[in-house]
């Protein structure tokens, strides 16, 4: 046994640490602030002391945005098949079953129709805790159905992205979801129906390279990681450390790819104001 061991490379965060909405009585933000989870919830999952936006999923966003948490879910019954019979260190089927068990979700996105401050709209929201919010056939189809619903009822559309990108276990099928969702958005655009894309932490890969960057309004939460390639890939490509603040929402805004950054506590109000102006 040597006294020196090489540090493992690659993704080293154990899945158990990639927690989404906090459980338990207390929550500790990355900067070390501690807050009661009940208080956190009533504060839109933003830590009041350091404004840290806790990573949340569809359950929480729907609760924040839909009036009285009332909504009708779209295509809730969809679940991933395993079209390739894919297996890496674990069969994809097993991974899906585990994720369903762990999260209580059917896949990495949910879509629903409801009211926000009395305004009818359609929201699709990604769930990062389900295989990294990766987009396979189900996420693509749910986003597509959300767009179809918005189109059929002439309702504004909000898509909340939070994803590492396309799902490798569905390979070619996943790649084509970029095309599929963009095709649907092309139709929505023709019909003159507003589409707001909210990019949250993180939004990268195939999701940023399709619907997340195609909003009439591209907005983001503060500090969110947004990019095409993940920071690790960029670092390996250029062979040196990345500049501070690289690929943050603020960086992306500065470079002209976002309309504005919104604090989650103001999200509902800001969205309502904007959508009312377009009516």
């Amino acid at each position, binding site marked *: 046994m040597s006294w020196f061991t090489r540090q493992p490379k*690659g993704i080293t965060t154990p899945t158990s640490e990639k927690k989404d909405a906090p459980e338990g009585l207390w929550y500790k933000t990355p900067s070390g602030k501690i807050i009661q989870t009940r208080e956190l919830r009533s504060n839109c999952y933003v830590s009041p002391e350091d404004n840290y936006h806790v990573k949340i999923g569809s359950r929480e966003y729907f609760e924040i945005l839909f009036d009285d948490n009332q909504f009708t879910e779209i295509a809730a019954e969809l*679940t991933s098949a395993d079209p390739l019979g894919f297996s890496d260190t674990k069969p994809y089927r097993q991974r899906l079953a585990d994720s369903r068990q762990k999260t209580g979700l059917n896949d990495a996105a949910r879509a629903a129709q409801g009211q926000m401050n009395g305004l009818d709209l359609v929201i699709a929201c990604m769930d990062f805790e389900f295989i990294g919010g990766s987009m396979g056939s*189900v996420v*693509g189809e749910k986003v597509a159905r959300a767009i179809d619903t918005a189109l059929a009822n002439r309702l504004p559309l909000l898509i909340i992205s939070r994803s590492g990108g396309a799902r490798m276990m569905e390979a070619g099928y996943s790649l084509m979801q970029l095309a599929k969702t963009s095709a649907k958005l092309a139709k929505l655009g023709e019909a003159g129906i507003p589409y707001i894309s909210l990019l949250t932490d993180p939004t990268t890969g195939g999701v940023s390279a399709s619907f997340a960057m195609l909003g009439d309004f591209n907005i983001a939460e503060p500090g969110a990681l947004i990019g*095409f390639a993940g920071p690790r890939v960029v670092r390996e490509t250029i062979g040196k450390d990345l500049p501070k603040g690289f690929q943050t929402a603020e960086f992306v805004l500065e470079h002209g790819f976002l309309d504005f950054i919104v604090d989650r506590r103001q999200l509902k109000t800001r969205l309502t104001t904007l959508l009312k102006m377009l009516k």
Partner: protein
Amino acid sequence: MLLDFEKPIADLETKLAEMKKAATDNQIDMSVSIATIEEQIQALKIETYRKLTRWQRVQLSRHVDRPYTLDYIDYLATDFVELHGDRTVRDDKAMVGGFGTIDGQTFMLIGQQKGRNTKDRQFRNFGMANPEGYRKALRLMKLAEKFNKPIVTFIDTPGAFPGIEAEERGQAEAIARNLREMFMLRVPVICIIIGEGASGGALGIAIGDRVLMLENAWYSVISPENCSAILWRSWNYKEQAAEAMKPTATDMLAFKLIDGIIDEPLGGAHANKAAIAQTVKQTILDTYQELAKLTPDERIEQRIQKFASMGVYATV
């Protein structure tokens, strides 16, 4: 440079050449032996190329002698006027394009371009376009639409470039915009994956009425190496990753994610460049004839419907 599975064939071919030389030099009749070796070579080729693994096809798709976009354009187009620049940042050398005439019909020809030697590879950034490359491609497509000329794209890229400047200039936005805009193009769009079709970087110019793959090209969400690195957390599982991802032309056609396969000569596209170029030319002309029969609205509707129907899912 030979790939592992090309070596036994090359060895026999060397032997054949030596034998032919000996026959001529020494004025002896070796026609029987020569014929035997020629038969052996043919048999070995058929044997080898019939049972290529998926990884071997990936290797063939990257073969150093494989024809690249400009090779096809050179062969296909009698006139070619290359057009440069995205009108915003710069001219991306990894993405080339321009008007060309094939059999009297003007096409807009666009594609990623790789380099053949070290210097050229760097100049072409290994066929990895920056955002300005995708924006240049879109500019040229809009130009084609304006003058009512059909578009052919040649896809051959290990991916969109993942650099700092690419991020600063909105790589994701550039690709996303191309996807959406290509659906609305009023002219026929034919896309051909001639080598590597890696991820969004490939898809960014691959939304078409017909998407075709060369027999030994691959097209998927990620390269087998990167898939191995992420899912197996090691670079050593690229063969398994290639098998698992099923990225070959046959796979992609079976999944109905592409519209057709263009057969390559025995030994791959590089084994007979004139033959593959001729096949590609004929395919483009035939496909264009087919697409020209539809109205722009019909094409757009079918293009959208085709991609919108891609995906396999179940219900709880």
